C-alpha cells in the first residue's frame, strides 16, 4: 500500500501542476479573446478599460455542489516553472496594446492548443489518481487497511 500511495501522491503533484498551468492558460485565452472581440466590435485600442473588465473575463460560471476533497491551499511546488512555460507561450500578452488582431489570434490558437494538451494530461492524471484511490477504498472496505495507521 505504501507503493500505491507513493504513486498516487506523485500523480497528485503532477495533477496539481497541470491544473495550475491549465487555469493560467485559460485565463490568458479568455483575456486575449475578449480583446479580439472588443476590437472586432470597433473598440478602440487602450489598456485602461481591460483591467476593469478582468473580473468578468476571469470568473467561472456559477458553481454547483460543495467541496469534494481537501485542497492544497498554496500553489504547486513548481508553480514558477509553469509560469515561465506559459510566458514563453504568450510573451506578447504584456504588450497586448501594440499587438495586431492577427497577432492576438495567433497567440490564442497557440495557447488553446497547449490548453487542450494540458487538460488531457490533467484528465489522465485524475483517472490514475481516482483509480489508485478506488483500490485503497477496496482495501479499507475489506479491512486490509486501517485508517488509524495514518495517524
Amino acid at each position: 500500500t505504501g507503493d500505491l500511495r507513493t504513486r498516487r501522491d506523485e500523480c497528485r503533484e503532477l495533477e496539481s501542476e497541470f491544473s495550475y498551468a491549465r487555469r493560467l492558460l485559460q485565463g490568458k485565452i479568455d483575456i486575449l479573446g475578449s480583446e479580439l472581440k472588443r476590437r472586432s466590435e470597433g473598440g478602440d485600442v487602450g489598456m485602461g478599460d481591460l483591467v476593469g473588465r478582468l473580473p468578468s473575463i476571469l470568473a467561472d460560471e456559477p458553481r454547483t455542489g460543495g467541496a469534494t476533497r481537501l485542497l492544497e491551499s498554496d500553489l504547486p511546488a513548481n508553480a514558477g516553472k509553469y509560469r515561465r512555460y506559459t510566458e514563453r507561450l504568450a510573451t506578447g500578452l504584456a504588450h497586448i496594446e501594440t499587438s495586431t488582431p492577427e497577432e492576438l489570434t495567433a497567440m490564442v490558437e497557440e495557447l488553446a492548443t497547449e490548453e487542450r494538451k494540458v487538460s488531457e494530461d490533467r484528465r489522465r492524471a485524475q483517472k490514475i489518481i481516482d483509480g489508485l484511490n478506488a483500490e485503497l477504498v477496496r482495501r479499507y472496505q475489506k479491512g486490509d487497511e486501517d485508517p488509524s495507521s495514518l495517524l
Partner: protein
Amino acid sequence: VLGPVDELWAEYKSTGSQKCRDELIVHYAPLVKYVAARVAIGLPSNVDQEDLASSGIIGLMEAVSKFEPERGFKFESYAAARIRGAIIDDLRALDWVPRSVRSQARQVEASLSKLQEKFGRSPTDEEMAEDMEVTVRKLRSIYSKISTVMFVSLDRLLSVGDKGESGMSLVDTLVDTKAEDPEQAVEAKEMKQFLVKAIAGLPDRERTAITLYYYEGLSLAEISQVVGVSQARISQMNAKSVMTFRSMLNR
C-alpha cells in the same frame, strides 16, 4: 536571462508608470482565476464568482505595487497569498454568514465545549442533541449549514499564531511543508501532535471519516464508500470535527 516580463518589472519599479502597472496586472491576472475558483469551492451559490474575482484583482494590484523583485522571492507565491487574502477579507466584510447560522454555530460550540469538559472526550451527536434540546436530525442540518460557511475558515482554522497569510494552515501541518522559521516548525510539530490526539478522540465513524479526509485526501464520495454513510453525513462530520478542534484549541 532577462525576459520581457523582467524588463517590464524593472521599468515599472523605476518609473512607477500606470501603464506598466496595468500591463503587469493583465499579465498575472490568470493567477486570480486559479485562486478565486478554488476559494469558490464549497461556498454557497449566492456568492458571486465575479465578486470574488474583483476582490482578487485588488489583491493582485496590491501585490504588484508592494513586490520587490530584487528580494529574490517568487512573485507568484507572494501574489497568490495576497489574492486569496483579499478575497477572504472581502467575504468576511460582506458579512455573508446568515445571523441564524452564526447563532446556531455558537450554540453548537457551547454544547461541544461543555460536553467535552464533562465527558473528557468528544460527545456523540445524540449527546449533543439532548444537551441542545433538538433532534439529531436538526443538529445535523445545522452542521450542513455550518459546513458551507465554514469552508473559508476551515483551511486557516488552525493557523498557528496570528501570522495572517503566512500562518500555517491545517493542510500545511499535514503535508509536512518546510516551515519558514524554527518557531513555526515547533508550532507545526505541536499542531501535528494536537491534531493526532484530537482526531483519535473522535467517535469511531467520525475518526475514520476525518482521518481519510485530511490524511488520505479521499473525496467525500470515496470516504462514504468506506464509512457507509452519505456524502452529506461526511461533510456534517467534517464541520463538527472542525468545531470540536477549534473549541479544544480555545480552552
